[in-house]
Protein backbone atom coordinates (compact mmCIF):
# COMPACT_ATOMS: atom_id res chain seq x y z
CA UNK A 1 0.00 0.00 0.00
CA UNK A 2 1.31 3.46 -0.80
CA UNK A 3 1.26 6.01 1.98
CA UNK A 4 -1.45 7.96 0.19
CA UNK A 5 -3.67 4.88 0.20
CA UNK A 6 -2.92 4.18 3.86
CA UNK A 7 -3.91 7.70 4.76
CA UNK A 8 -7.34 7.11 3.30
CA UNK A 9 -10.20 6.72 5.79
CA UNK A 10 -12.37 3.64 6.10
CA UNK A 11 -14.90 4.12 3.32
CA UNK A 12 -14.54 7.37 1.41
CA UNK A 13 -18.20 7.48 0.38
CA UNK A 14 -19.24 7.45 4.04
CA UNK A 15 -17.10 10.40 5.00
CA UNK A 16 -20.01 12.84 4.81
CA UNK A 17 -22.09 10.64 7.17
CA UNK A 18 -23.36 12.19 10.39
CA UNK A 19 -21.28 11.44 13.50
CA UNK A 20 -24.32 12.19 15.65
CA UNK A 21 -26.47 9.58 13.90
CA UNK A 22 -23.80 6.88 13.74
CA UNK A 23 -23.33 3.93 16.07
CA UNK A 24 -20.14 3.49 18.08
CA UNK A 25 -18.94 0.82 15.65
CA UNK A 26 -19.54 3.06 12.65
CA UNK A 27 -17.59 5.85 14.34
CA UNK A 28 -14.62 3.54 14.89
CA UNK A 29 -14.74 2.72 11.17
CA UNK A 30 -15.05 6.42 10.33
CA UNK A 31 -11.87 7.27 12.22
CA UNK A 32 -9.54 4.37 11.44
CA UNK A 33 -7.91 3.30 8.19
CA UNK A 34 -9.97 0.71 6.33
CA UNK A 35 -9.62 -2.81 7.70
CA UNK A 36 -7.13 -1.86 10.40
CA UNK A 37 -9.34 -2.22 13.49
CA UNK A 38 -8.53 -4.98 15.95
CA UNK A 39 -11.00 -5.21 18.84
CA UNK A 40 -10.16 -6.29 22.40
CA UNK A 41 -12.81 -8.24 24.33
CA UNK A 42 -15.29 -7.92 21.50
CA UNK A 43 -18.93 -9.02 21.67
CA UNK A 44 -17.98 -12.63 20.93
CA UNK A 45 -16.40 -12.74 24.40
CA UNK A 46 -19.78 -11.87 25.93
CA UNK A 47 -18.30 -9.90 28.82
CA UNK A 48 -21.58 -8.42 29.96
CA UNK A 49 -22.39 -6.46 33.09
CA UNK A 50 -23.06 -8.80 36.02
CA UNK A 51 -25.39 -6.25 37.60
CA UNK A 52 -28.11 -5.46 35.04
CA UNK A 53 -29.92 -8.75 35.47
CA UNK A 54 -30.68 -7.76 39.09
CA UNK A 55 -32.88 -5.05 37.58
CA UNK A 56 -34.21 -7.29 34.79
CA UNK A 57 -32.50 -5.07 32.23
CA UNK A 58 -31.16 -6.29 28.90
CA UNK A 59 -27.42 -6.79 28.57
CA UNK A 60 -25.21 -5.98 25.63
CA UNK A 61 -22.33 -8.27 24.68
CA UNK A 62 -19.80 -5.42 24.60
CA UNK A 63 -21.38 -3.59 27.57
CA UNK A 64 -21.74 -0.46 25.47
CA UNK A 65 -18.09 0.23 24.73
CA UNK A 66 -15.82 -0.87 21.90
CA UNK A 67 -12.09 -0.83 22.49
CA UNK A 68 -9.12 -1.82 20.41
CA UNK A 69 -6.29 -0.69 18.23
CA UNK A 70 -5.95 0.36 14.61
CA UNK A 71 -4.23 2.72 12.25
CA UNK A 72 -4.90 6.40 11.74
CA UNK A 73 -3.27 7.54 8.49
CA UNK A 74 -0.87 4.62 8.79
CA UNK A 75 0.14 5.20 12.42
CA UNK A 76 -1.01 3.02 15.34
CA UNK A 77 -3.63 4.37 17.75
CA UNK A 78 -5.67 2.90 20.58
CA UNK A 79 -9.38 3.66 20.37
CA UNK A 80 -12.42 3.48 22.67
CA UNK A 81 -15.98 4.26 21.52
CA UNK A 82 -19.03 4.48 23.78
CA UNK A 83 -22.43 3.39 22.46
CA UNK A 84 -24.83 6.11 23.54
CA UNK A 85 -27.83 4.02 22.52
CA UNK A 86 -27.10 1.38 25.14
CA UNK A 87 -28.01 2.68 28.61
CA UNK A 88 -27.06 6.20 27.53
CA UNK A 89 -23.42 5.17 27.12
CA UNK A 90 -23.17 5.05 30.90
CA UNK A 91 -20.15 3.77 32.80
CA UNK A 92 -20.65 0.47 34.62
CA UNK A 93 -18.16 -2.02 36.03
CA UNK A 94 -17.27 -3.85 32.79
CA UNK A 95 -17.67 -0.82 30.52
CA UNK A 96 -15.33 1.21 32.73
CA UNK A 97 -12.77 -1.56 33.28
CA UNK A 98 -12.34 -2.00 29.52
CA UNK A 99 -11.35 1.66 29.18
CA UNK A 100 -9.17 1.54 32.31
CA UNK A 101 -7.24 -1.45 30.94
CA UNK A 102 -6.74 0.30 27.61
CA UNK A 103 -5.48 3.49 29.28
CA UNK A 104 -3.04 1.52 31.43
CA UNK A 105 -1.73 -0.20 28.31
CA UNK A 106 -1.31 3.17 26.58
CA UNK A 107 0.58 4.42 29.65
CA UNK A 108 2.96 1.44 29.46
CA UNK A 109 3.35 1.57 25.67
CA UNK A 110 4.12 5.31 26.08
CA UNK A 111 4.09 6.30 22.40
CA UNK A 112 0.69 5.24 21.01
CA UNK A 113 -2.02 7.93 21.17
CA UNK A 114 -5.48 7.03 22.44
CA UNK A 115 -8.77 8.33 21.04
CA UNK A 116 -11.86 8.32 23.24
CA UNK A 117 -15.15 8.66 21.34
CA UNK A 118 -17.35 9.86 24.20
CA UNK A 119 -21.11 9.35 24.15
CA UNK A 120 -22.27 9.15 27.74
CA UNK A 121 -24.69 10.36 30.36
CA UNK A 122 -22.22 9.49 33.16
CA UNK A 123 -22.43 6.80 35.82
CA UNK A 124 -24.79 3.85 35.20
CA UNK A 125 -27.02 4.14 38.24
CA UNK A 126 -27.87 0.44 38.48
CA UNK A 127 -24.22 -0.21 39.32
CA UNK A 128 -23.56 3.19 40.77
CA UNK A 129 -20.62 2.49 43.09
CA UNK A 130 -18.76 0.49 40.47
CA UNK A 131 -19.45 3.11 37.80
CA UNK A 132 -18.33 6.02 39.98
CA UNK A 133 -15.16 4.18 40.98
CA UNK A 134 -14.49 3.15 37.37
CA UNK A 135 -14.50 6.83 36.44
CA UNK A 136 -12.06 7.59 39.27
CA UNK A 137 -9.79 4.84 37.95
CA UNK A 138 -10.12 6.11 34.39
CA UNK A 139 -9.27 9.69 35.41
CA UNK A 140 -6.20 8.49 37.27
CA UNK A 141 -5.15 6.31 34.33
CA UNK A 142 -5.56 9.28 31.94
CA UNK A 143 -3.24 11.40 34.08
CA UNK A 144 -0.72 8.55 34.36
CA UNK A 145 -0.75 7.97 30.60
CA UNK A 146 -0.45 11.67 29.75
CA UNK A 147 2.37 12.09 32.26
CA UNK A 148 4.14 9.22 30.45
CA UNK A 149 3.81 11.22 27.21
CA UNK A 150 0.66 9.66 25.72
CA UNK A 151 -1.66 11.93 23.76
CA UNK A 152 -5.30 11.34 24.64
CA UNK A 153 -7.85 12.95 22.34
CA UNK A 154 -11.56 13.09 23.15
CA UNK A 155 -14.15 13.25 20.34
CA UNK A 156 -17.59 14.53 21.37
CA UNK A 157 -20.61 14.76 19.11
CA UNK A 158 -22.97 11.89 19.99
CA UNK A 159 -26.57 11.70 21.08
CA UNK A 160 -25.87 11.25 24.79
CA UNK A 161 -23.33 14.12 24.91
CA UNK A 162 -20.62 13.88 27.53
CA UNK A 163 -22.06 14.30 31.02
CA UNK A 164 -21.30 13.47 34.63
CA UNK A 165 -18.07 11.55 35.07
CA UNK A 166 -17.71 11.61 31.29
CA UNK A 167 -17.41 15.40 31.50
CA UNK A 168 -14.70 15.11 34.16
CA UNK A 169 -12.83 12.49 32.11
CA UNK A 170 -13.02 14.74 29.04
CA UNK A 171 -11.54 17.51 31.19
CA UNK A 172 -8.51 15.28 31.81
CA UNK A 173 -7.78 14.63 28.11
CA UNK A 174 -4.95 16.28 26.17
CA UNK A 175 -7.40 17.85 23.71
CA UNK A 176 -11.05 17.67 22.65
CA UNK A 177 -12.84 17.75 19.31
CA UNK A 178 -16.46 18.84 19.49
CA UNK A 179 -19.30 19.41 17.04
CA UNK A 180 -22.30 21.68 17.41
CA UNK A 181 -24.32 18.68 18.66
CA UNK A 182 -21.67 17.74 21.23
CA UNK A 183 -22.53 18.79 24.77
CA UNK A 184 -20.07 18.74 27.66
CA UNK A 185 -21.15 19.25 31.27
CA UNK A 186 -21.26 17.66 34.71
CA UNK A 187 -24.93 17.99 35.69
CA UNK A 188 -27.37 17.46 32.85
CA UNK A 189 -30.24 19.89 32.21
CA UNK A 190 -32.84 17.58 33.76
CA UNK A 191 -30.71 17.03 36.85
CA UNK A 192 -30.30 20.77 37.41
CA UNK A 193 -34.01 21.35 36.86
CA UNK A 194 -34.95 18.53 39.25
CA UNK A 195 -32.63 19.77 41.98
CA UNK A 196 -32.88 23.53 41.59
CA UNK A 197 -36.14 24.15 39.80
CA UNK A 198 -37.18 25.28 36.36
CA UNK A 199 -36.25 28.91 37.17
CA UNK A 200 -32.61 27.81 37.45
CA UNK A 201 -32.62 25.72 34.30
CA UNK A 202 -35.46 24.88 31.92
CA UNK A 203 -34.38 21.58 30.44
CA UNK A 204 -36.97 21.81 27.65
CA UNK A 205 -35.45 25.06 26.39
CA UNK A 206 -33.21 23.45 23.77
CA UNK A 207 -31.60 26.72 22.73
CA UNK A 208 -30.59 27.33 26.34
CA UNK A 209 -29.14 23.81 26.64
CA UNK A 210 -27.13 24.18 23.45
CA UNK A 211 -25.69 27.60 24.24
CA UNK A 212 -24.80 26.64 27.84
CA UNK A 213 -23.26 23.21 27.24
CA UNK A 214 -22.99 22.83 23.48
CA UNK A 215 -20.00 22.67 21.20
CA UNK A 216 -19.89 26.30 20.08
CA UNK A 217 -19.87 27.64 23.64
CA UNK A 218 -17.30 25.10 24.78
CA UNK A 219 -15.06 26.01 21.87
CA UNK A 220 -15.38 29.77 22.43
CA UNK A 221 -14.42 29.57 26.12
CA UNK A 222 -11.48 27.29 25.38
CA UNK A 223 -12.93 24.06 26.75
CA UNK A 224 -12.75 22.24 23.40
CA UNK A 225 -9.78 22.68 21.10
CA UNK A 226 -11.30 22.00 17.70
CA UNK A 227 -14.83 22.68 16.47
CA UNK A 228 -15.97 20.55 13.55
CA UNK A 229 -18.96 19.82 11.33
CA UNK A 230 -21.06 16.80 12.21
CA UNK A 231 -19.35 14.54 9.69
CA UNK A 232 -17.15 11.47 9.83
CA UNK A 233 -14.44 13.18 7.81
CA UNK A 234 -14.34 16.28 10.01
CA UNK A 235 -13.88 14.24 13.19
CA UNK A 236 -11.22 12.05 11.58
CA UNK A 237 -9.25 14.99 10.21
CA UNK A 238 -9.36 16.78 13.57
CA UNK A 239 -8.19 13.70 15.48
CA UNK A 240 -5.34 13.27 13.00
CA UNK A 241 -4.23 16.87 13.43
CA UNK A 242 -4.38 16.72 17.24
CA UNK A 243 -2.38 13.50 17.70
CA UNK A 244 0.47 15.33 16.01
CA UNK A 245 0.38 18.50 18.06
CA UNK A 246 -0.67 18.20 21.70
CA UNK A 247 1.86 18.13 24.53
CA UNK A 248 2.42 15.90 27.57
CA UNK A 249 1.08 16.70 31.04
CA UNK A 250 3.65 18.37 33.29
CA UNK A 251 3.56 20.59 36.36
CA UNK A 252 3.85 23.55 34.01
CA UNK A 253 0.73 22.36 32.16
CA UNK A 254 -1.21 22.35 35.42
CA UNK A 255 0.11 25.78 36.41
CA UNK A 256 -0.93 27.11 33.00
CA UNK A 257 -4.37 25.54 33.34
CA UNK A 258 -4.77 27.13 36.76
CA UNK A 259 -4.11 30.55 35.19
CA UNK A 260 -6.38 29.79 32.24
CA UNK A 261 -9.32 28.85 34.48
CA UNK A 262 -8.72 31.70 36.94
CA UNK A 263 -8.80 34.16 34.06
CA UNK A 264 -12.08 32.68 32.84
CA UNK A 265 -13.66 33.18 36.26
CA UNK A 266 -12.36 36.76 36.49
CA UNK A 267 -13.59 37.64 33.01
CA UNK A 268 -16.92 35.84 32.87
CA UNK A 269 -17.77 34.83 36.44
CA UNK A 270 -20.54 37.41 36.68
CA UNK A 271 -22.15 36.52 33.34
CA UNK A 272 -25.68 35.19 33.51
CA UNK A 273 -25.87 33.62 30.09
CA UNK A 274 -23.63 32.37 27.29
CA UNK A 275 -24.68 35.39 25.20
CA UNK A 276 -23.07 37.71 27.80
CA UNK A 277 -19.88 35.67 27.70
CA UNK A 278 -19.73 35.71 23.91
CA UNK A 279 -20.23 39.48 23.91
CA UNK A 280 -17.48 39.85 26.51
CA UNK A 281 -15.13 37.68 24.40
CA UNK A 282 -15.73 40.12 21.56
CA UNK A 283 -18.20 38.35 19.29
CA UNK A 284 -19.77 41.21 17.28
CA UNK A 285 -23.29 39.79 17.02
CA UNK A 286 -23.50 37.24 19.84
CA UNK A 287 -27.09 36.28 19.06
CA UNK A 288 -26.07 35.09 15.61
CA UNK A 289 -23.61 32.46 16.92
CA UNK A 290 -26.04 29.52 17.24
CA UNK A 291 -27.13 29.85 13.61
CA UNK A 292 -23.67 30.54 12.21
CA UNK A 293 -22.33 28.01 9.66
CA UNK A 294 -19.21 26.11 10.76
CA UNK A 295 -16.70 27.80 8.50
CA UNK A 296 -17.75 31.28 9.56
CA UNK A 297 -17.89 30.28 13.23
CA UNK A 298 -14.44 28.68 13.18
CA UNK A 299 -12.82 31.67 11.55
CA UNK A 300 -14.49 33.98 14.09
CA UNK A 301 -13.45 31.73 16.99
CA UNK A 302 -9.87 31.55 15.71
CA UNK A 303 -9.66 35.32 15.93
CA UNK A 304 -11.14 35.56 19.42
CA UNK A 305 -10.17 32.64 21.56
CA UNK A 306 -6.77 32.09 23.14
CA UNK A 307 -6.32 28.53 24.25
CA UNK A 308 -3.04 26.74 24.17
CA UNK A 309 -2.42 23.04 24.15
CA UNK A 310 -0.07 23.39 27.08
CA UNK A 311 -2.86 24.58 29.41
CA UNK A 312 -4.99 21.49 29.88
Amino acid at each position, binding site marked *: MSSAEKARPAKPHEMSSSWYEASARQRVDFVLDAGSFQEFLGPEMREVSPHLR*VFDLPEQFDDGIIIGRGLLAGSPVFIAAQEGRFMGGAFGEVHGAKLTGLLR*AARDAKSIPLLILFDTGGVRLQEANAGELAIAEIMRAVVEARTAGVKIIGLIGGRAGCYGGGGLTAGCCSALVVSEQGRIAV*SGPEVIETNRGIEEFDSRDRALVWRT*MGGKHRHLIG*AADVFVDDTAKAFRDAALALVQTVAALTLETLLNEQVRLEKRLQSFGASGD*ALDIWKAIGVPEAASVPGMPTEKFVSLADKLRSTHHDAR
Partner: protein
Amino acid sequence: MTLDEILASLFPDGCKVENDNGILTGYGSLQAGGQGMVIGVSDRTALGVDEAIRLSSFVLGALKTGSGPILVIVDSDSQRMSKRDELLGLNEFLAHLAKCLTYADMHGRPTIGILYGHSAAGAFLATALATRVLVGLPGASPAVMDLPSMSKVTKLSVEVLEEKAKSTPVFAPGLENLAQTGAVHRIWSATSSLAAQLDALLADLPDTRDIRDSLGKERKGRIKAAEIAERVHALALAP
Protein backbone atom coordinates in the same frame (compact mmCIF):
# COMPACT_ATOMS: atom_id res chain seq x y z
CA MET B 1 -17.07 13.05 64.44
CA THR B 2 -17.01 16.80 63.97
CA LEU B 3 -14.30 18.47 61.92
CA ASP B 4 -12.73 20.01 65.04
CA GLU B 5 -12.58 16.62 66.76
CA ILE B 6 -11.01 15.11 63.66
CA LEU B 7 -8.35 17.80 63.33
CA ALA B 8 -7.53 17.60 67.07
CA SER B 9 -7.18 13.84 66.93
CA LEU B 10 -5.18 13.87 63.66
CA PHE B 11 -2.78 16.59 64.77
CA PRO B 12 -2.24 16.48 68.57
CA ASP B 13 0.88 18.64 68.09
CA GLY B 14 -1.19 21.34 66.42
CA CYS B 15 -2.45 22.42 63.06
CA LYS B 16 -3.42 25.54 61.20
CA VAL B 17 -6.42 24.80 59.02
CA GLU B 18 -8.70 27.55 57.73
CA ASN B 19 -12.33 26.86 57.05
CA ASP B 20 -13.58 29.49 54.63
CA ASN B 21 -17.22 28.82 53.81
CA GLY B 22 -16.64 25.09 53.79
CA ILE B 23 -13.33 25.12 51.94
CA LEU B 24 -10.44 23.80 54.02
CA THR B 25 -6.79 24.72 53.50
CA GLY B 26 -3.85 24.43 55.84
CA TYR B 27 -1.16 22.35 57.49
CA GLY B 28 -0.81 20.08 60.48
CA SER B 29 2.16 18.58 62.34
CA LEU B 30 2.33 14.85 61.86
CA GLN B 31 3.01 12.71 64.89
CA ALA B 32 5.72 10.88 62.95
CA GLY B 33 7.41 14.20 62.18
CA GLY B 34 7.08 16.62 59.30
CA GLN B 35 4.00 18.35 58.08
CA GLY B 36 0.87 17.23 56.34
CA MET B 37 -0.89 19.55 53.95
CA VAL B 38 -4.65 19.71 54.37
CA ILE B 39 -7.31 20.56 51.85
CA GLY B 40 -10.94 19.64 51.97
CA VAL B 41 -14.61 20.40 51.86
CA SER B 42 -16.66 20.61 55.06
CA ASP B 43 -20.21 21.26 56.20
CA ARG B 44 -21.65 19.45 53.21
CA THR B 45 -20.65 22.29 50.91
CA ALA B 46 -21.31 21.92 47.19
CA LEU B 47 -18.18 21.96 45.05
CA GLY B 48 -18.52 24.56 42.31
CA VAL B 49 -16.08 26.43 40.09
CA ASP B 50 -15.10 28.97 42.79
CA GLU B 51 -14.40 26.33 45.42
CA ALA B 52 -12.53 23.97 43.09
CA ILE B 53 -10.18 26.67 41.78
CA ARG B 54 -9.17 27.66 45.33
CA LEU B 55 -8.37 24.07 46.26
CA SER B 56 -6.31 23.45 43.11
CA SER B 57 -4.48 26.75 43.65
CA PHE B 58 -3.52 25.68 47.16
CA VAL B 59 -2.32 22.25 45.96
CA LEU B 60 -0.23 23.74 43.15
CA GLY B 61 1.24 26.39 45.45
CA ALA B 62 2.32 23.74 47.93
CA LEU B 63 3.82 21.53 45.21
CA LYS B 64 6.40 24.15 44.41
CA THR B 65 7.71 24.47 47.95
CA GLY B 66 6.55 21.82 50.40
CA SER B 67 6.91 18.13 51.10
CA GLY B 68 4.96 15.44 52.93
CA PRO B 69 1.54 13.91 52.43
CA ILE B 70 -1.60 15.74 51.33
CA LEU B 71 -4.74 14.99 53.33
CA VAL B 72 -8.06 15.56 51.61
CA ILE B 73 -10.77 15.78 54.29
CA VAL B 74 -14.28 15.57 52.90
CA ASP B 75 -17.86 16.20 53.93
CA SER B 76 -19.35 17.64 50.76
CA ASP B 77 -22.54 17.84 48.81
CA SER B 78 -22.32 16.81 45.15
CA GLN B 79 -20.98 19.25 42.58
CA ARG B 80 -22.92 22.52 42.62
CA MET B 81 -25.83 22.08 40.27
CA SER B 82 -26.35 25.46 38.69
CA LYS B 83 -26.56 27.13 35.34
CA ARG B 84 -23.63 29.41 36.18
CA ASP B 85 -21.24 26.62 37.15
CA GLU B 86 -22.00 24.61 34.02
CA LEU B 87 -21.82 27.73 31.83
CA LEU B 88 -18.29 28.38 33.12
CA GLY B 89 -17.13 24.80 32.51
CA LEU B 90 -17.44 23.05 35.88
CA ASN B 91 -16.19 19.81 34.30
CA GLU B 92 -12.84 21.46 33.60
CA PHE B 93 -12.50 22.90 37.12
CA LEU B 94 -13.27 19.55 38.77
CA ALA B 95 -11.00 17.67 36.35
CA HIS B 96 -8.23 20.19 37.00
CA LEU B 97 -8.45 19.63 40.77
CA ALA B 98 -8.35 15.85 40.28
CA LYS B 99 -5.39 16.18 37.91
CA CYS B 100 -3.48 18.33 40.43
CA LEU B 101 -4.06 15.79 43.21
CA THR B 102 -3.09 12.83 41.01
CA TYR B 103 -0.02 14.63 39.73
CA ALA B 104 1.04 15.45 43.30
CA ASP B 105 0.54 11.85 44.37
CA MET B 106 2.68 10.58 41.50
CA HIS B 107 5.44 13.06 42.32
CA GLY B 108 6.31 12.43 45.93
CA ARG B 109 3.29 13.90 47.72
CA PRO B 110 1.15 10.92 48.71
CA THR B 111 -2.54 11.83 48.84
CA ILE B 112 -4.87 10.43 51.48
CA GLY B 113 -8.58 11.07 51.43
CA ILE B 114 -10.45 11.12 54.73
CA LEU B 115 -14.19 10.88 54.25
CA TYR B 116 -16.02 11.85 57.43
CA GLY B 117 -19.39 13.00 56.16
CA HIS B 118 -21.23 12.95 52.88
CA SER B 119 -19.94 13.14 49.37
CA ALA B 120 -21.44 12.40 45.99
CA ALA B 121 -21.02 12.44 42.24
CA GLY B 122 -18.60 14.96 40.69
CA ALA B 123 -17.46 16.37 44.03
CA PHE B 124 -16.58 12.89 45.25
CA LEU B 125 -14.59 12.22 42.04
CA ALA B 126 -12.62 15.47 42.24
CA THR B 127 -11.65 15.14 45.93
CA ALA B 128 -11.82 11.90 47.92
CA LEU B 129 -11.71 9.54 44.91
CA ALA B 130 -8.79 11.46 43.35
CA THR B 131 -6.48 10.33 46.17
CA ARG B 132 -4.22 7.28 46.30
CA VAL B 133 -5.84 5.91 49.43
CA LEU B 134 -9.25 6.79 50.83
CA VAL B 135 -10.18 6.10 54.45
CA GLY B 136 -13.65 6.37 55.87
CA LEU B 137 -14.64 7.42 59.36
CA PRO B 138 -17.67 5.82 60.98
CA GLY B 139 -20.78 7.78 60.07
CA ALA B 140 -19.49 8.76 56.63
CA SER B 141 -22.24 8.52 54.03
CA PRO B 142 -20.95 8.51 50.46
CA ALA B 143 -23.47 8.10 47.66
CA VAL B 144 -23.46 8.31 43.91
CA MET B 145 -27.04 9.55 44.03
CA ASP B 146 -29.72 9.37 46.69
CA LEU B 147 -32.41 6.72 46.28
CA PRO B 148 -35.29 9.13 45.51
CA SER B 149 -33.31 10.69 42.63
CA MET B 150 -32.28 7.23 41.46
CA SER B 151 -35.91 6.24 41.53
CA LYS B 152 -36.67 9.12 39.17
CA VAL B 153 -33.96 8.09 36.71
CA THR B 154 -34.41 4.31 36.85
CA LYS B 155 -38.25 4.45 36.98
CA LEU B 156 -38.21 1.97 39.86
CA SER B 157 -40.01 2.74 43.12
CA VAL B 158 -38.00 3.69 46.21
CA GLU B 159 -39.37 0.54 47.89
CA VAL B 160 -38.02 -1.66 45.11
CA LEU B 161 -34.68 0.17 45.21
CA GLU B 162 -34.44 -0.26 48.98
CA GLU B 163 -35.06 -3.97 48.55
CA LYS B 164 -32.41 -4.23 45.79
CA ALA B 165 -29.99 -2.20 47.93
CA LYS B 166 -29.99 -4.91 50.57
CA SER B 167 -28.73 -7.55 48.16
CA THR B 168 -26.65 -5.42 45.79
CA PRO B 169 -23.69 -3.60 47.35
CA VAL B 170 -22.54 -2.29 43.99
CA PHE B 171 -25.68 -0.21 43.69
CA ALA B 172 -26.50 0.91 47.22
CA PRO B 173 -25.09 4.03 48.93
CA GLY B 174 -23.02 3.78 52.09
CA LEU B 175 -19.49 3.43 53.41
CA GLU B 176 -19.49 -0.37 53.74
CA ASN B 177 -20.66 -0.80 50.16
CA LEU B 178 -18.00 1.61 48.88
CA ALA B 179 -15.36 -0.28 50.87
CA GLN B 180 -16.47 -3.54 49.32
CA THR B 181 -15.95 -2.16 45.80
CA GLY B 182 -12.39 -1.13 46.74
CA ALA B 183 -13.00 2.62 46.80
CA VAL B 184 -12.45 2.86 50.56
CA HIS B 185 -9.09 1.40 51.57
CA ARG B 186 -9.72 1.26 55.32
CA ILE B 187 -12.39 2.27 57.77
CA TRP B 188 -10.83 3.99 60.77
CA SER B 189 -12.02 3.79 64.33
CA ALA B 190 -13.43 6.98 65.84
CA THR B 191 -12.53 5.95 69.38
CA SER B 192 -8.75 5.65 69.02
CA SER B 193 -6.20 8.27 67.99
CA LEU B 194 -6.49 9.30 64.34
CA ALA B 195 -2.84 10.42 64.45
CA ALA B 196 -1.78 6.88 65.31
CA GLN B 197 -4.01 5.43 62.60
CA LEU B 198 -2.58 7.91 60.08
CA ASP B 199 0.98 6.97 61.10
CA ALA B 200 0.17 3.30 60.62
CA LEU B 201 -1.31 4.04 57.20
CA LEU B 202 1.68 6.15 56.11
CA ALA B 203 4.06 3.40 57.22
CA ASP B 204 2.17 0.85 55.15
CA LEU B 205 1.12 2.92 52.14
CA PRO B 206 0.65 1.13 48.82
CA ASP B 207 2.75 2.48 45.94
CA THR B 208 1.20 4.85 43.41
CA ARG B 209 -0.25 2.02 41.31
CA ASP B 210 -4.06 2.03 41.47
CA ILE B 211 -5.06 -1.10 43.41
CA ARG B 212 -8.73 -0.28 43.92
CA ASP B 213 -9.94 -2.80 41.36
CA SER B 214 -7.96 -5.66 42.90
CA LEU B 215 -9.24 -4.64 46.36
CA GLY B 216 -12.77 -4.75 44.97
CA LYS B 217 -12.14 -8.25 43.69
CA GLU B 218 -10.72 -9.47 47.04
CA ARG B 219 -13.70 -8.01 48.86
CA LYS B 220 -16.16 -9.40 46.30
CA GLY B 221 -17.76 -6.02 45.66
CA ARG B 222 -16.50 -5.73 42.08
CA ILE B 223 -15.86 -9.20 40.82
CA LYS B 224 -15.04 -8.40 37.18
CA ALA B 225 -13.26 -5.04 37.01
CA ALA B 226 -9.69 -6.10 37.85
CA GLU B 227 -9.75 -9.12 35.57
CA ILE B 228 -11.24 -7.21 32.63
CA ALA B 229 -8.67 -4.40 32.96
CA GLU B 230 -5.82 -6.93 33.15
CA ARG B 231 -7.01 -8.83 30.08
CA VAL B 232 -7.36 -5.65 28.04
CA HIS B 233 -3.94 -4.47 29.20
CA ALA B 234 -2.33 -7.75 28.06
CA LEU B 235 -4.17 -7.81 24.70
CA ALA B 236 -3.29 -4.20 23.96
CA LEU B 237 0.41 -4.70 24.65
CA ALA B 238 0.67 -8.02 22.78
CA PRO B 239 2.88 -7.70 19.70
